[in-house]
């Protein structure tokens, strides 16, 4: 009985592929360092374009009202600027959002406490008039935005901490340091890109960062698992060779998983709508950078730090005796 059609899969990484990752490690390591420093200084100098979640303020998404049965006409952004700009609400940004009929208005946080934000919202809505429908309104007052900032930072730190503990518990401390370096790299570079392009950084970006952390460490764990297994199998292989072998052995898995994840993320990025575009961008970028970091940062750090070679419970003397007997 033929249960399923019999057709063979294709190896998109040829069998026995052996890329010398470790020889690239110096170049990559220093390149990564340079990128991290660049990202950190971008963050320091340009700062992040925080969304209302963290900065407080008002965000209003509007769409022009369509004539009966027709499509929504393009919005007159210049007119909107005149209407809203004269209200004395400080920094007001008005931009097209996704399509010509949609507009996103951002009003900075108003001085004068919680009620001032609501007053600003009412003023804007009044000024805009009846030509638009409200698609989305987000108003975050000073109390909530400062709480969200705190929880955002705590969440990222707590995740990194939980991951360190877990890896330390499951592996050796050297693996934990490698993983943390890789994670820090991923977070820093993603934040740097958000700073460079001044993309909006809000609560969903933090959620994306946490997912990236989870994904990146997942990758790192798979490589580390293989390194540990090979450490037991090949007791006397030179560490760089062993690391290289482990990375190569897991390479097709790494690329395959990144591949499927990237496929769905691209689908989300292009089809998932304007509201979550930043969120999916952060994740797309993070998956690529996370894959890179587990190969080029986490593993080379093991070589830098050295790692316990003897996992079998055999003592050194016995080993020496065994090798003496063998020779």
């Amino acid at each position, binding site marked *: 009985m033929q249960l399923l059609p019999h057709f063979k899969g294709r190896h998109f990484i040829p069998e026995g592929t052996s890329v010398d990752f470790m020889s690239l490690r110096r170049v990559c390591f220093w390149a990564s360092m340079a990128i991290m420093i660049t990202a950190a200084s971008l963050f320091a100098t340009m700062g992040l374009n925080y969304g209302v979640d963290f900065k407080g303020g008002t965000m209003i998404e509007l769409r022009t009202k369509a004539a009966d049965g027709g499509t929504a006409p393009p919005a007159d952004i210049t007119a909107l600027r005149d209407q809203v700009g004269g209200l004395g609400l400080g920094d007001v940004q008005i931009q097209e959002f996704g399509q010509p009929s949609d507009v996103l208005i951002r009003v900075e946080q108003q001085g004068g406490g919680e009620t001032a934000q609501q007053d600003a919202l009412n003023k804007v809505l009044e000024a805009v008039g009846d030509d638009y429908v409200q*698609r989305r309104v987000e108003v975050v007052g000073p109390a909530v935005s400062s709480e969200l900032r705190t929880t955002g930072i705590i969440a990222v730190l707590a995740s990194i901490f939980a991951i360190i503990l877990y890896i330390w518990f499951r592996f050796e401390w050297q693996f934990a340091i490698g993983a943390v370096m890789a994670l820090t790299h991923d977070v820093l570079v993603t934040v740097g890109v958000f700073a460079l392009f001044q993309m909006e950084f809000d609560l969903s970006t933090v959620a994306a960062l946490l997912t990236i952390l989870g994904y990146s460490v997942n990758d790192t764990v798979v490589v580390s698992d293989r390194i540990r297994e090979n450490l037991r199998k090949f007791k006397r292989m030179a560490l760089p060779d062993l690391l290289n072998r482990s990375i190569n052995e897991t390479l097709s898995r790494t690329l395959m998983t990144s591949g499927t994840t990237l496929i769905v993320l691209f*689908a989300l990025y292009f089809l998932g709508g304007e509201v979550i575009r930043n969120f999916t961008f952060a994740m797309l970028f993070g998956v690529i950078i996370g894959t890179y970091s587990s190969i080029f940062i986490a593993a080379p750090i093991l070589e830098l730090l050295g790692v316990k070679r003897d996992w079998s419970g055999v003592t050194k003397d016995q080993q020496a005796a065994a090798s003496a007997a063998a020779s």
Partner: protein
Amino acid sequence: MLHFSPFKMISIAVLCLAAMFYAIPNLFDKATVESWPRWLPQKQISLGLDLRGGAHLLLSMDTNELRDDMLTSLRADARASLLRERIGFRALAIRNQSVQVRVAKAVDEPRALTALQSLSQPLDGGLLVGTTDRNVTVERGADGIISLTLTDAALRKRVTDAIGAAIETVRRRVDPTGNVDATITRNGDDRILVQVPGVDDTRALKDRIGKVALLSFHAVHQDLYYTGGPIPPGYKTAESVEAPGQQYLIRASSVVRGDDLVDASPGFDERTRAPEINFRFNQSGGRKFGTWTSANVGRPFAILLDGQVISAPVVQTAILGGAGRITGQFTPEEANNLAINLKSGALPAKLTVIEERTVGPTLGADSIASGLSAFAIGGIATLIFTIFVYGTFGLIAVAGLFINALLIIAAMTLLGSTLTLPGIAGLVLTIGMAIDANVLIYERIREELRNGKNAVEAIDTGFGRAMVTIIDSQLTTLAAALIMFWLGSGPIRGFAVTLSIGIFTSVFTAVTVVRLLVSLWLRAERAKSRAVDVPI
């Protein structure tokens, strides 16, 4: 690893069928599902406000206002008790969040202290037996100033009570008929979260929540209810809270208004032990109410809160002292809340909107549409890619993915978790990442085959060895998801929930469903020939 007992096989099959059974209602619209026979599942995933459209308002109560209220009445009580004891005092004032007073003659000080001590009452409602928390501490400072300070416990209790009462008030204002499906919940110590589906312009809603409440006592027409026809001159109709739809016919002008009320407290009827509310008017209110009740014994009057009749008791006797009681169909808790509402004119303190997130219905619908198309396209692309790379085994993995998706949807339906837009993203992402477990297994099988093992050995070791890695790697993602849940407000929480459920189901499908399918395939192949060619 590859042996499955019949019991196990049946359990896995039953579970998959059950998942399908419970996931199916989500494919149809609500009306269709409701027309199904009762034995079919009808529960659907509840959509978050960002998908169905609606308003999310976080209200914060002004606790300073509550404290000032308490201090003001404490000062009044202190004055009254000192006057009653005929003790001369000066400089009675609220300073540094306590009430301070200086006794005129040092001789009177012990008596004054005793009198003021009596204001310090144990807090009721403490859950711990023998709790010693009191509402006020009385201290005499070295400079002869007597300070009455509110305890933190008293303040906390006041805030808790006030939020409880405010929730009731907000509910009555947001959803008077009870069919808007609004959720109004306590959030933290001094906040209320209001979620109302289907609202895109929240201005009217916020006005309704924040308005100053009006309490008034009205005479009721002899017909009691309005039954149609012209409304008699001088009368108006008012809806009943207890029986929605029922209209009372009441005098348009009120006898007394809430402004004249000075106190209201919950109590119990001495004979029947039924909960009731005791209230007291100020002098002018008491006089008006006394005159009116003397002339109307045996007739009902209506108590209106925010324009609705909360109670229409009958005047039992003339209420001359300015104090009276309201009996009605209350639970003790309702009596308590109502008393607080009465005393403070409905809202115990000002509520301020500190966070607002509103999504209009058009955006919600757009989000669902784009989420679904991303899900479909992303899913199909993953299937093609997986089958291309792993051949027949890829097909098995795809079957696993399909079951995985069903399991997630069924789990979310049964757990009653809310699907948000980031939640859909989490679902799509899970589909991409769920393949990882299969990839780990299949890559391992490929390796073992390369090392010269035969099909059975390779598949067996492949599943066994990959297991450790799968668990290790998924646990870390789970940790991140749990932290996100803790961090999250609504939509992000939705993402964390789908991600966590997805982790469990994808591990489950990889190690049971996929393994079962592979072993069934292997059994069929081995029946054909001894040398099995693994198509991977």
